[in-house]
């Protein structure tokens, strides 16, 4: 041992020091994220009511999830919500970034503030507010009646055909501002000379957007897609507050079912299994998004 060259050992120590810095955060992460996650996975192998002794059922809960039509329906609903939480906000965000980024106008700060507002309001408050707006005598119906569309007016959240769309549009309202902010900040990084060069080459605003702005937003697009898709798949608060999954199972999402199964129905094992499946699904989709956005470069 004593024959080891001192230089080497000092170097080794220096390399070790890095781990020491990481250790507190790592320990924290393990204690409050990794272990609970593993425990959840472990619980998913039991049939447990939350009180009495659990019974080992192996993968039985997972089999039940695959067979339950309500659970499958909830996954379908979550995928529909991806359209409203992710696709539409990204398109709207790109549109407003394209329209606003290149030209300075007075009042831009206020405009951004307005669009960012939904981001700083707690989602539960958002849900309560929209429940009023969508109500029988809510603003939405008042507006429709004011322009003579009485036959269209209805209690949107109680309508079998429109409830999911209505809930989805709340998500669109919340997340469009976030996407816009992301893209606006992305555009500001673009070297102005590129735009100059494009204009000299005779590019109009559309051409400019497609050839210069869009390629530079690839990173921001990946971030926006990841954040909004996760928000859609893991959605809970908005749905819980507005419709509680109804009418029927039209707006039931997996997050809501995890909560219900664990807390009101006393099926903790099944809830844990569903939570695991949902996490795996989200991780898979996020991985896919990141792979695709990297491949295009």
């Amino acid at each position, binding site marked *: 041992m004593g024959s080891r060259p001192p230089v080497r050992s000092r170097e080794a120590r220096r*390399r070790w020091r890095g781990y020491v810095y990481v250790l507190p955060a790592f320990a924290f992460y393990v204690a409050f994220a990794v272990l609970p996650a593993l425990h959840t996975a472990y619980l998913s192998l039991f049939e447990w009511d939350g009180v009495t002794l659990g019974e080992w059922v192996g993968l039985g809960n997972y089999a039940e999830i695959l067979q339950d039509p309500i659970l499958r329906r909830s996954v379908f609903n979550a995928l529909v919500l991806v359209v409203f939480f992710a696709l539409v906000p990204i398109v709207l965000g790109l549109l407003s970034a394209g329209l606003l980024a290149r030209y300075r106008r007075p009042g831009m700060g206020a405009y951004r503030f307005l669009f960012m507002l939904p981001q700083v309001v707690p989602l539960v408050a958002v849900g309560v507010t929209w429940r009023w707006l969508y109500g*029988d005598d809510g603003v939405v119906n008042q507006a429709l009646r004011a322009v003579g569309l009485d036959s269209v007016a209805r209690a949107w959240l109680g309508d079998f055909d429109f409830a999911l769309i209505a809930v989805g549009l709340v998500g669109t309202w919340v997340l469009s501002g976030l996407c816009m902010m992301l893209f606006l900040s992305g555009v500001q990084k673009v070297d102005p000379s590129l735009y100059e060069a494009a204009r000299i080459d005779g590019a109009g605003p559309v051409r400019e957007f497609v050839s210069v702005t869009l390629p530079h937003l690839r990173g921001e697009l990946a971030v926006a897609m990841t954040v909004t898709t996760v928000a859609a798949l893991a959605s809970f608060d908005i749905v819980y507050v507005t419709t509680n999954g109804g009418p029927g199972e039209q707006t039931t999402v997996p997050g809501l079912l995890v909560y219900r199964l664990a*807390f009101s*129905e006393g099926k903790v094992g099944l809830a844990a299994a569903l939570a695991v499946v949902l996490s795996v699904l989200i991780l898979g989709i996020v991985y896919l998004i990141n792979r695709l956005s990297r491949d295009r470069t």
Partner: protein
Amino acid sequence: MDSTHRVGRRLAATLCAVALVLPLAACDALTPGSATVVPGPTGVPSSTAVPNGDVTLRLQFADAPLMVDALIAAFEKGHPDIAVEPQYKTFSDYVQNLKLTMTSDTAPDIAQYAVGMTDLAADGHILDLAPYREAYGWDKAIPPVSLDQLTAGQTSAATGGRALFGVPAGLSMTGIYYNKELAEKAGIDAPPKTLAEFEKQLAAAKEADLTPLGVGALDSGGLHLWAALLNQLMPTDEYWDWVNGKKGATIENPAAVEATELVIDWGREGYYNESANGTAQVDSTAQFTKGDSVFLINGNWAAGQLATVMGDNVGFFPMPGEQPGSPTVASGFSVSYAVSAKTEHPEAAGAFLDFLTTPEAGQIISDNGFMPPNPDAVKKPTGVLADIAEGHERAVADDGITTFPDFAAPAMLDRLRSGVQKLIADRVKPADYLDSLQDEWEDHHGE
């Protein structure tokens, strides 16, 4: 260079392995539920004596905080040695945490009875109060039907008779409210005597271009409608067997199909408010006070609000049966209190529960809009409150107060809520709806 890398990798691998193996190695301790110590056969003394010395009882509850405060104040006046410390929670918080609360080491001495108490009672976390029932004579002070709701379908180990897991402080009941002015406009001059007559009145209201029946089906309001019809058509004994989880009981029977079909038919006839599925129960009540519908399905808990806003313009009747002489049957339950098996003061808890059956407590309960367990002991109410008291008296006399159908299983409320929404929207066949309920029932009550 290489070696440090290897060390780092080894460290990471070790940490991962530890993280993975720890929970598995500690398997026994981590088996869910193994940490819960099920208390032994704690008994209730069969005498009514309350020992001397200062005692503090913790009371956790979810309904009617004003009523609870008044009851506690009155009780403490009579028992200066016993302090009662109220712990209020909102209803959903209360129900969702009930099992954790009652199985924890710091369980409250007294807790409001709710869905889920049945399982706790079966596991020995709730005291069987049957010896107290005999000692205090509660069978005389409280209608037996109200106590039967609190037996969790069990027999008592201590007395050999019915078990008892709570004492009611105020009873509830569902039924139909009607707007007297609007009813007159539709040519309806008296509450219906039969279900068929009620249907005619709904049709008359429709004919008069009014919304016949207000339903708030966004939350649990729809299930009251279905249960009210079920109560009239399905034999009460069979309904009890089903709610109590008696072996072999089923909701898939012709009477239940008929009741379910009625909910669909009324929807097809356009008897409900157009956005019933998008309206919460409290909102449907508010709309009713504004004259938006002739009838409203709800429970006595809405009576205070309705009487205040509508005065003499509102009346109440229980859903009528098939024949003029049919017994009055309605869903109802009680705001009841159970005692934790972990309490150190069962005598003091018993004294508090007994206080709830006294005329003094009855008056407090009545003043707060609930029906006292012993209605003879209080001043006669007036207006719509009198209608309810009279209907409740008939139902009690006919042994016709049945628990709410969601008591059949913890997950039943979700099935019922979404199921009735589909019935109202005509989106499910009666057989499929009842099948989904029975599936849930079998899931909970086992083979």
